[in-house]
């Protein structure tokens, strides 16, 4: 994270906190405002409920009526005797005053007024006085004769009432004014408080808006910075990718560059080994051969490691006998074991007898060799024991136990760690904790297996690995090594190779195999040779000046369209990547063979596509398996003679035709049991005759869901091996 980005993040967080605070503040203020309005509303309601008759008005009316009556009485008194109409009027006046009194005492006024001592006192005194006059006026109303003195007393009483009502009027006015002023003051206060509240809310909201604007700006800025950072990361990633690609390319080029001279060294060494040499030189040649082989292994390991790192390791699935593979691996380290004074022991579990497994033998062999050479390296005058077993029907286990120096507990956890730039050197491979074990781990894991170690310092180690495999019937119980040149058909072969040493090696090998060889030094010459001659097989180098292998192949194929003939074209390449395979296929090649080329491999190629272990260009990994096991065929030829074998083949094919009909019938009605029986018969018979691929295929078909086109597929495959068989007989 860049400092700017960190700063922005902090700023955004701070702004966020401030926003939260302001939001809370605004919410609280709003609540207070709502409460204030609630109070105002409640107060208004109270006012509504408390609508009262106007006290001041009532008191004024009382005062007025008292005066009116008093003055009427005075006027009447001055014109004694009083007229009847006046008496009626005076009586009415008294009644009105009386009604005022009762209104004043009954009616509801402001509580503050009703409870004020002055008001209550005045009211009581007025009431007493008015009620005191009642008998006089009652008598007057009932037209009783008037007594002048009594009239005068009443008049003076009424006149005395006036100052009291007047004072009450003043008191009430004062009181009402005070109440009004108080109410006004309170309203004012509430108004001011509300105004203040609104102001604070306005400020708070303004701050909130400002803060949000700031936050928005910050967020925008941060987004920009993030984009920038993402771009930088993306750039860095691209750069790293480019670096990695460059590294891979470098490794591939190095691999190729190293393998080309190594090809020559190994080829010449193999030729030398077949030459008539003194015993001392022969041993030297052997050392050169084994060292070269070891070097090749190292290069392959490095390339494999790179491939695994990139996740483009292509695993093969080939049937092989694990016992035999283990035996071969033991033989490789036998020399070094002898030097160290170690005993070697191989135990193959009886459950593996007669079984082959489907997996990648090349990679397993490499892992096995790695572990075995480590074991031998760290064991002196001890024992190295290899145990191969099937812990589960579909799982194979290899266990290498030694009595060597063992591994310390601290070193154990990082034993399988890959080398790093700082401490990784190829020489560490023999250190026991270097590239070798890392490759082993990666390889085994890529194959879906597990690898592990148990060890105690000083008392040896047990390395093991387990792989998921499929078991199949081993095609043969045992085969003896045979002369690669035996029973080889003689073919017209064109070798197109720019490297003089490689060309030399190839020529010598092919001569040794008794083949007719023509050489071409580049693609262009190869094409003209191919056009001129009639070749059965063309070995084509991929990288050549003037015209490369692919272009040359295309040219040749184009020409063949006119002649109607078709030569097998096998690519010779150091890089057998998927892309190369695809390119080869596209150009019209039939197969490819990885460099360096050995005599045995060359012999297989010469024998033909059916027998070749060079990989045909096909996505079907099962067809990697040789169509015909030549060793088995040779064995049968030895046992029955060529004619006997031919008879056997013919009876197989005629039997097979019948079985095939039965299979077709079973498949058409979905009879799984009959189909299985047919497949089983086919499998057994074909295995006996060395038709390995066919036998494996039928065996596999038995365990798979039956499909309708199985019969047709088997028919095709039968035709293929029949053709191959006939070619072999013809040869």
């Amino acid at each position, binding site marked *: 994270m860049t400092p700017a980005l960190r700063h922005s993040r902090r700023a955004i967080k701070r702004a966020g906190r401030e926003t939260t605070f302001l939001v809370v503040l605004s919410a609280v203020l709003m609540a207070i405002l709502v409460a204030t309005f609630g109070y105002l509303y409640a107060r208004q309601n109270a006012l509504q409920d408390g*609508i*009262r*008759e*106007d006290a001041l008005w009532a008191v004024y009316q009382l005062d007025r009526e008292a005066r*009116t009556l008093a003055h009427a009485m005075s006027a009447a008194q001055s014109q004694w005797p009083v007229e009847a109409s006046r008496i009626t009027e005076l009586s*009415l006046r008294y*009644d*009105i005053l*009386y009604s005022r009194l009762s209104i004043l005492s009954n*009616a509801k006024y402001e509580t503050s007024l009703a409870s004020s001592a002055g008001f209550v006192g005045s009211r009581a005194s007025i009431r007493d006085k008015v009620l005191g006059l009642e008998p006089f006026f009652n008598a007057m109303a009932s037209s009783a004769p008037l007594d002048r003195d009594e009239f005068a007393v009443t008049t003076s009483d009424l006149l005395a009432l006036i100052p009291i009502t007047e004072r009450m009027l003043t008191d009430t006015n004062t009181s009402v004014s005070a109440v009004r002023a108080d109410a006004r003051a309170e309203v004012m206060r509430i108004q001011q408080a509300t105004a203040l509240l609104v102001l604070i809310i306005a400020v708070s909201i303004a701050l909130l808006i400002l803060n949000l604007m700031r936050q928005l700006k910050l967020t925008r800025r941060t987004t920009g910075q993030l984009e920038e950072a993402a771009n930088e990361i993306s750039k860095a990633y691209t750069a790293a990718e480019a670096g990695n690609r460059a590294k891979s390319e470098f490794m591939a080029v190095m691999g190729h560059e190293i393998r080309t001279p190594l090809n020559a060294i190994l080829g010449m060494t193999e030729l030398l080994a077949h030459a008539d040499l003194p015993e001392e030189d022969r041993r030297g040649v052997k050392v050169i051969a084994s060292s070269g082989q070891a070097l090749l292994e190292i290069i392959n390991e490095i390339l494999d490691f790179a491939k695994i790192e990139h996740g483009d390791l292509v695993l093969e699935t080939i049937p092989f006998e694990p016992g035999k593979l283990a035996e071969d691996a033991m033989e490789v380290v036998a020399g070094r074991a002898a030097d160290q004074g170690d005993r070697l022991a191989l135990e193959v579990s009886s459950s593996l007898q007669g079984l082959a497994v489907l997996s990648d033998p090349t990679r397993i062999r490499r892992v096995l060799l790695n572990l075995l050479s480590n074991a031998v390296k760290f064991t002196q005058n001890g024992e190295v024991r290899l145990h191969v077993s099937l812990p589960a029907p579909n799982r194979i286990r290899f266990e290498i136990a030694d009595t060597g120096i063992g591994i310390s507990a601290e070193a154990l956890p990082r034993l399988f760690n890959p080398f790093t730039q700082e401490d990784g050197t190829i020489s560490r491979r023999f250190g026991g904790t270097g590239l070798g074990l890392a490759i082993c781990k990666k390889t085994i894991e890529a194959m879906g297996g597990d690898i592990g170690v148990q060890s105690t310092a000083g008392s040896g180690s047990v390395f093991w690995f387990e792989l998921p495999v499929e078991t199949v019937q081993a095609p043969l119980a045992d085969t003896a090594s045979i002369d690669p040149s035996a029973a080889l058909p003689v073919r017209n072969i064109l070798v197109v190779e720019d490297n003089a040493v490689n060309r030399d090696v190839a020529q010598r090998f092919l001569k040794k195999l008794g083949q007719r060889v023509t050489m071409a030094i580049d693609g262009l010459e190869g094409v003209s040779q191919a056009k001129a001659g009639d070749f059965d097989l063309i070995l084509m180098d991929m990288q050549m000046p003037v015209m490369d292998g692919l272009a040359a192949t295309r040219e040749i194929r184009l020409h063949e369209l006119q002649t109607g003939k078709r030569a097998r074209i096998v690519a010779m390449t150091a890089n057998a990547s998927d892309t190369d395979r695809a390119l080869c296929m596209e150009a019209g090649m039939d197969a490819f063979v990885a460099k360096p080329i050995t005599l045995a491999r060359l012999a297989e190629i010469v024998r033909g596509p059916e027998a070749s272990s060079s990989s045909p260009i096909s996505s079907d990994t099962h067809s990697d398996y040789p169509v015909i096991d030549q060793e088995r065929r040779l064995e049968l030829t030895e046992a029955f003679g060529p004619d006997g074998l031919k008879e056997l083949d013919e009876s197989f094919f005629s039997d097979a035709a019948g079985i095939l009909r039965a299979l077709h019938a079973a498949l058409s009605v979905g009879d799984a049991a009959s189909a299985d029986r047919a497949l089983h018969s086919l499998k057994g018979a074909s295995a006996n005759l060395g038709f390995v691929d066919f036998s494996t295929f039928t065996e596999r078909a038995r365990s798979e869901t039956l499909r309708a086109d199985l019969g047709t597929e088997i028919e095709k495959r039968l035709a293929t091996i029949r053709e191959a068989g006939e070619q072999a007989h013809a040869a």
Partner: protein
Amino acid sequence: MRAKVLASAAALAMLFCQPALALDAPTDPVILTITGAITETNSDGAAVFDLPMLQDLPGRTGTMETPWTEGETAFDGPLLRALLAEVGAHGKTLRVTALNDYSAEVPVSDATDYETILALAMNGKPMSVRDKGPLFMVYPFDLNPELYNEKYFSRSVWQIKAIEVIE
């Protein structure tokens, strides 16, 4: 507002279309004198009423609280609009005068829009002058609570003795 007034006038006109019976002369002491814009009279340019005449008019009894009485009080008396119809009043305003010469102006619409009565009795008893009698203009606070405010309090004239219909 104007529409309302017009409507009220129209309503009154409808009422007055009926041929009003000539007013009888009062037999008991007169307690209410109506003057002004009226068509029916039984005195010199005025319509005068005694208690039985008023009691004969259509009326209502309403029970309500007022600022001048203690608790729920029942008022009973003729509807103001019935009285106005009786005298063939055709004005917009009434000047209502009390015994003490206090007077208040009451719009005629108060008579037509509301069940306003001139109460003759309070809690079933006739009202003396001492009890705000003999006539008390009572607005229907029970039917129209919105009238319970100072504006209508000032129009609630008691001890009424005369009404003048002003055009």
